[in-house]
């Protein structure tokens, strides 16, 4: 793993974002819009029934957390799509850059996007709804790390599918992550799911993060079991996804599809 080459690729994307207002807007536009809409809904619910007093805390927290996962996924997939759109894959993979370094750079870009979105959303939530995301204290850190890892899983999977099936699979960059939303239990507890779906949700690391978040807010206790499950599952799935990505990369090179993925 050559750090210089990873930094080179990161600089390529930062050059891009520095100059492209639409790309910067894309990072902030939807999260802020989500925050405004869901924020007002939860304020309304809280006003209607006192028993929903905690709704603002739950919904806004869940929303910010879901956006962390979503942006982590997008950080990987959109970075890959940028190379397809600019037909730059040949320039990159005919250089000493390895598939692993390429993935590492995309992961770094996703952290950049997550950091940007999280800071903006946290401040917007504080400003508009007096909601302080930091009420969770230091437990916030492992939760966020797990959400980023969960986003990476879907991002790597999406990237592998686009690499294999070409630009026709591009729509997955925005859509695939939402397939996991119902079993991530973002806005409702896992117990709400039908019995047959609950084991599937339990196998989803994101569901453990959101369950854990609710536990922190309700009981002020650190939900270690959920955290360990999330970490274990993320670690396992990350290994599997990286293996799938490397396999797909090698298969695309074998079939001559790597440099034709945008055609």
């Amino acid at each position, binding site marked *: 793993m*050559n750090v*210089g*080459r990873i*930094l*080179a*690729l990161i*600089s*390529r994307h930062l*050059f*891009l974002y520095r*100059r*492209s207002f639409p790309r910067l807007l894309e990072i902030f536009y939807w999260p802020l819009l989500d925050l405004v809409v869901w924020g007002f809904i939860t304020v309304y619910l809280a006003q209607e029934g006192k028993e929903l007093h905690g709704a603002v805390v739950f919904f806004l927290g869940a929303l910010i957390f879901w956006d962390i996962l979503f942006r982590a996924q997008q950080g990987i997939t959109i970075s890959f799509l*940028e190379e397809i759109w*600019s*037909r*730059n894959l*040949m*320039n*990159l*993979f*005919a*250089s*000493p*850059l*390895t598939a692993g370094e390429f993935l590492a750079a995309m992961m770094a870009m996703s952290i950049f996007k997550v950091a940007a979105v999280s800071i903006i959303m946290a401040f917007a939530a504080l400003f508009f709804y007096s909601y302080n995301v930091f009420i969770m204290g230091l437990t916030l850190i492992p939760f966020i790390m797990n959400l980023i890892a969960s986003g990476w899983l879907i991002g790597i999977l999406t990237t592998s599918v686009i690499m294999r099936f070409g630009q026709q699979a591009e729509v997955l960059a925005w859509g695939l992550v939402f397939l996991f939303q119902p079993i991530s239990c973002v806005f409702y507890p896992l117990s709400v799911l039908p019995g047959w779906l609950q084991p599937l949700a339990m196998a989803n690391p994101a569901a453990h993060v959101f369950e854990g978040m609710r536990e922190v807010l309700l009981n002020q206790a650190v939900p270690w079991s959920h955290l360990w499950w999330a970490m274990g599952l993320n670690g396992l799935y990350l290994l599997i996804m990286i293996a799938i990505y490397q396999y797909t990369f*090698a298969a695309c*090179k*074998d*079939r*001559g599809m*790597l*440099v034709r993925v945008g055609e």
Partner: protein
Amino acid sequence: MSAPIVRVQNLTKQFGNFTAVDHVSFEIQPGETVGLLGPNGAGKTTTFQMLLGVITPTHGTIEMLGFDLLHHREEILRQVNFSSTYISMPYALTVEENLRVIGRLYGVSGIDRRIDDVIKKLEMEDMRHKIARKLSSGQMTRLTLAKAVLTEPKILFLDEPTASLDPDIAHKVKGFLKEYRATSGLSMLYTSHNMREIEEMSDRIVFLQRGKVIAEGTAQEVIAQYGEDDLEQVFLKIARER
């Protein structure tokens, strides 16, 4: 004779039942320029892409700089670069930003000085801060060429480097490449559909048809082998025999 800087042996690529490159073997000596010729679909691009490590060969070996590409990809590709009329650079970055990224990717030291040097030599001062999207096709070709020589490669693969250039700039680019080759000892594999250019730029020619090498030698040797007056006549004869 010194050891070849590029040695291709029995290189074969099959896509399903279709054989794009069929047991191709050739060598490039240090400082030598070899012209890779052939009609459309002859296997030139696939050969290029295998040499650049973006397509995995079905059979055969590629050795460059004394290493096997399969096992020493990074060491080799650090010292190899390419320029193709058909591959552009990221449109949203300026010329300088594109070169800076490439320089970092290949670990070029003294990147600022090197960028200045290449921009000056290729007469690109006026487009240094221009977004690549706004470049003409000829300017984009010069950018891809600048990207290729920025890293001071030992081996350069050039796929129709003058295809979209006006005669004046094409003449300057060829002059630049000749001078660069003379001062750096660079080895090149060169494709073009301009036979006069191939004769001018290449020491030897490898002629491909239907994925196979059908002729190899100096331009004069290949012309004599086919009993024609010039390389263009040889090309037409081979292309129409298909």
